[in-house]
Each structure stands twice: as C-alpha cells, then as structure tokens.
C-alpha cells in the first residue's frame, strides 16, 4: 500500500510539473501556433519576480500572485512590438523569439549576476512509511491542476474564450462577424505569458533560480505540446500524463539518463502512430 502511495505521489508530481510548464506554451503554440522560443525565459522571469520579492522579505505566496501579472505585462509589450507582426510566419517567429531568449537571459545576468541569491526554502515534509516527501511539491500538483481547469473554463465558458478560439481557427470569418482579431490574439498571448510566469513562480523554491534556468525545460515542454496535438489543453494534458508518467517510470526503474531516452522513444512511437498528435481525432473544443 505504501509503495502505491509513493508511486502516486511521485508520478503525480512529474506529470503536474510538466503540465504546469507546458501550459503557457499550450496556449501560445497549441492555440495560436506561435512558436515562442523564449518560453523558458518567460518562466525564468516569473521565478525572478519571486526572488526579488523574497529579497524584500515578502512572503512566497505574494510572489506567486504578482509574478503572472509581471510576465503578462512583459508579454503584452513584446506582443505589441514584435509578435503581432509575425502571426502566421512560423520561421520568423522562431528566429525572433530565439533572439529574444538570448536577450532576456543576458539582461537577467546583467541585473542579477550569474549566482543570484535570495530564495528562501519552503519548509514542510511528510512521511509515507519510510519515505519523506516535500509538502510544497504536492501544493504544486494541486495548483497546476487548478490552473489547467481555470484555463479550460476561460476558453470554453467565457465570451473572450469563444472569441479567441474563433479568431485563431477562422480569422476571416471572425473578423467578418465583428471580432477584433488583433486584440483577441494579443489577449491570448498575454494569457500564455501569465501562465508561464505562474509556472516560474511556483517552481522558484525547488529549482535553482538563475538566468539560464529556462533552457533545461524548453525541449521537453515543446515536445509535450506537439505530442498533445491540435486540441491545445486536452492534448497537452494527455501528453503530460503520458510523457511525465513515462519519465517517472523510467527514472524509478532505471536512471534519469535512460528515462530521457525512453521518453523520446515514446514520442517517436506516438508521432508515427498519430502524426498530428494525440488529440487529432478527438472531438473536443480546446
């Protein structure tokens, strides 16, 4: 029984972490087909907001609340200046966001140095049999699930959500029916940025907050969103379950290095079997 609880606790964390990191990109790429190579840096900026607030002796939860707004603002500025000229132009978006990621990394180094200090640890652990787990990691699982549900509700139950889906899926028809496509895309990009900032803020206490922290996530997160397929949220959730679960199993049974290879094998099989992604044949709205 203990072993089952162990597996449930650990695997849920792996899946939730991947989903949380991928959520912002699922909105940007999954919904809008904007390839944001600076997604890792958006996450990093969210983490740095928490760092700055911790240095000012503000509590962690305050940082988690503020970070999405800060990154959303950054996303707004970048969208109006750069991204909105590039909708539909995939290759140019890649180049521009790639350059953006380098710029943001170096700005973070200039502002904080290469070894930034100030994060405080989150205390609290619990035992299951012989094993101890961090309470905070389970909080991340809960908040990740809530974030996904909230995003899903926004896109399916609100007027903004309906308009934004229309603007992305049928821009001409949407414009003809009076939807301001440009503003809708802007709002979606800003939402994706806010979600990335939220993810960065949540993981700040558990990973090292440093200017290049976004690099390690990018490949895995992109893979998850692409494996997820056309239904951005449902697909990414399913892909996170599959790939996060596979990574957990691979690490638990073999080693982290082999687990990465196994995940890639699973990706190859999925893309071969369902070239357009897991959710290609699903009849879901988002």
């Amino acid at each position: 029984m203990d072993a089952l609880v162990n597996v449930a606790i650990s695997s849920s964390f792996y899946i939730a972490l991947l989903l949380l990191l991928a959520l912002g990109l699922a909105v940007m790429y999954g919904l809008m087909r904007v390839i944001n190579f600076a997604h890792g840096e958006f996450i990093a900026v969210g983490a740095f907001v928490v760092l700055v607030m911790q240095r000012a002796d503000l509590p962690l939860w305050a940082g988690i609340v503020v970070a999405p707004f800060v990154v959303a603002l950054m996303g707004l500025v970048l969208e109006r200046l750069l991204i909105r000229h590039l909708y539909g132009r995939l290759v140019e978006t890649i180049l521009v966001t790639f350059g953006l990621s380098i710029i943001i990394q170096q700005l973070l180094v200039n502002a904080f140095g290469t070894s930034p200090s100030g994060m405080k640890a989150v205390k609290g652990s619990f035992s299951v049999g012989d094993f101890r787990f961090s309470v905070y990691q389970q909080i991340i699982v809960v908040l990740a699930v809530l974030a996904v549900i909230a995003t899903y509700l926004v896109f399916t139950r609100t007027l903004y959500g309906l308009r934004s889906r229309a603007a992305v899926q049928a821009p001409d028809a949407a414009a003809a029916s009076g939807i301001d496509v440009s503003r809708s895309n802007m709002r979606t990009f800003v939402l994706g940025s806010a979600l990335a900032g939220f993810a960065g803020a949540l993981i700040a206490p558990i990973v090292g907050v440093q200017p290049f922290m976004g690099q390690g996530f990018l490949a895995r997160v992109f893979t998850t969103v692409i494996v997820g397929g056309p239904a951005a949220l449902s697909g990414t959730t399913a892909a996170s379950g599959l790939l996060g679960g596979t990574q957990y199993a691979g690490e638990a049974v073999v080693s982290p290095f082999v687990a990465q290879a196994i995940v890639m094998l699973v990706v190859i099989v999925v893309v071969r079997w369902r070239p357009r992604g897991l959710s290609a044949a699903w009849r879901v709205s988002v």
Partner: protein
Amino acid sequence: MKGIPDDQQSSQATGITRRGFLGRAVVVAGGLTVGGPLLAACGGDAAPGGAAGGGSGPVKVGSLLDGTGPLSLYGEPMVKAQTFMIEEINAKGGLLGRQLELRYIDSKSQIPNYVAGARELVGDKDVVVTHGGITSASREAIRPVFDQAEKLYFYNQLYEGGVCDKWVFCTGVVPQQQMKQLIPYIAEVAGKRVYTMAADYNYGQISAQWVRKFVGDIGGEVVGEEFIPLDQSNFNSSLARIQAAKPDVVLSLLVGGAHLGFYNQFAQAGLKDQIALASTVVGLGNEQQVLSPEVGEGLIVAMPYFQELETPASKAFAQAWQKRWPGAYINDEVNSVVLGYRFWAAAVEKAGTFDRDPVIAALESGLTIDAPEGEVLMDPVTHHVHHAVSLAKINRNKGFDIIKSFPPDTSGPVFDRCDLIKNPDMHTQITEAT
C-alpha cells in the same frame, strides 16, 4: 473543424503552406550554417590586431573561457581573475620588458566554440600560451588541439585529475588532494556509508571512480551512485533511491545551474537532519550564496582556497582583489587562475624567454610561487600543483566556516603513473579505471 480537409486546416488558420515553410526554412538553415561558425569564430575576440610577436612590443596570451551562457556561472569569476592577473603583471612592467595582451575568446558555453577558438589560438603565431577550459569536457575537447600543435596550455580549474601531458599544466586541485582529506573527515563526523550523486559527464564519471577508491581505503561503502544529466532539475527519483539506501552522507559531484535544485529538494523533503551533505564542487559556482541558509548550512567541502582563510597571503590577496572587483566573492577558481598566470610568469622570467621548451623546463625545475592559498610548488613530474587543502562547511551567513587546514603534501608526486620528465612523450589522462 468540420468541413475543411485536414491539410488545409492549419494553413487556413495560420496562412502557412508546406511549400512556403520549407522554402523559408531552407534559407534560414543555410544562413545559420554559414553564419554560425563565422559568428562563433569572430565573437569575443579582444583586439585581434596588435604588434607582431617579435622581439619587442606586446606579447599575446590566449584565453578560452565561457564568459556568457549557462556556464558563465563558472566562467565569470575566472574572467575576472584573468583580467586581474594580466593587470597585475603589466603593472609590474610586463614580462621580459614586454606588456601582455590578452586574446580572449568567449566560448559561450558551447564545446564547438572551444574547439574553433583553440584552433584559432594555436594558428596565431603571436600567442605564446593559452589559459582556458572550464568543464572537463571542454578541456578534453581542446587538449588534442594543443597536443597536435605542440603548444603550451594551462588548465586552471578543479577537476578529476590524471592529465599527464607534456604541453599541459593543471593548476586546479585533484581528488588525490581533495578527496584524500574530505572523505576521512566525513567518515569521522557522519559515517562510512556514502551515496554519490554525480553529473553525467567525464568529470562526474571519473571522480566517482576516485570516490570508490578513497571510500574503500577508509573501510567505507559506496551504497549508491547516480549519474544525472546536466539539464535535469527534478530529483524526485534520486531522493527516493537515497532514502531507500540509507546512507550516512550524500557526496555531491553535481555541476551546473540545473543541479542546484537537488539541494533545495533534499532540504525540503526533510532529509537534512538524517543525512549529511558533502561536495567536491560546491563553492565553484558560489552556491553558498545562492542556496538559502536552511538549505546550504552544514554542507561540507574541501578546497585549497576560501575567502575566509585568515592567513597573511589570503588577506593580502583579498585586499588587492576587492579594490579591483569590489563585492566579488573569491572562490577557488580565482585561486587556480592566479596560480596559472603566476606560475607561467615565473617560468618565463626564469627561462628568460617565451619559447615553449625553456618555459616547460623552468616549470619542471621545482618552481614555487606565492598564491592566495599560500606558497605552493609545481610538481615537476606531473605538471600539477601541490595544494594545501582546507575543510570547511557552509554557515548561516552564506559563507564558509573553516574547520581545518592541511599544508601541501610534497612527499611524492601529485599522482602516480605519470613522470613527464622520464617520459616526455605522454599526452593522456590517467584514471582509476585505467
């Protein structure tokens, strides 16, 4: 979406067609293939022009370091240290009456840039020596370049030991000095069951072999050993295995920014009160400042140099350093870089020339110099430095408390099976497994 054929759906939404995408992608790929190496080779050069390497005028010193990119975590203190050393030497009138001119190539945390940069530096007739390389991976990528060109190369960084190469001098501390003091001490204060967490590349792999040797020497047991890819930041499975193995101490050979997460997650799982933490590398990236006190306090390390050392040599150096780089913590990397430049400069002065063979002979003549860690001797047969080693632990104030200091052990070579005076044609690395 119903009603629209699949292959038209995405292009209708985004305006992209397969042909258009492929066409543009080819252009971009072509541009990157041509432009990439050009940019890599050009980037970061300082004053590529300058006087020809002749009798008078400035003499060029080559440098290959990661000043930018993720490894600038380790590169930035080293770049500061090299600037400090060039200025120190030039302020005293240079070497042999000639000023030093630094030709620094920023490898931007990419190994291909190291190789391209090394080829450039050996091709430059005016460069008389190169100091560079940070990770062991970068060193082993460029060492063959210097071997083939038969040019002098200084590797100024802590590493797994064993490089036995006529053209190469290593000023960093090695396991035979560092683990030799660290492992008996942690056995004494924590216990003999050791769990190794290592970065998955040559430094981690080879150092883990040395951990087994030194733990075996004191009658202990390595109860677990893991190799973690450099981009991994989620350590859940490792923590589960550590708890299952019930070690007395976790010995960390983890490297890089992503691996910082291990210490946070270890502390947050509540393991600090059960299992001790020690490391051979913590401090090189100023982790004692990054980690919060609840996470870092009590972590045991062993290095030749800590800023907190109260010796006259240490204090004198710290004063001069703080004038040049106020507020910058002086870690062991700085010590190693200082050693590299001071040994090279002393050898040039002793040899009376910049030519490679007389300088090597001078370095092999039992040369001693003053370092932040104290007076040190270059071991003639291994081309390594006899280091003092101090044990320390991270304190509540994001610094180190010195526990005990050991003077250099000059009774034998730094490590065995390497005699570059008797066997000058060796260009290899000796490991515990070979």
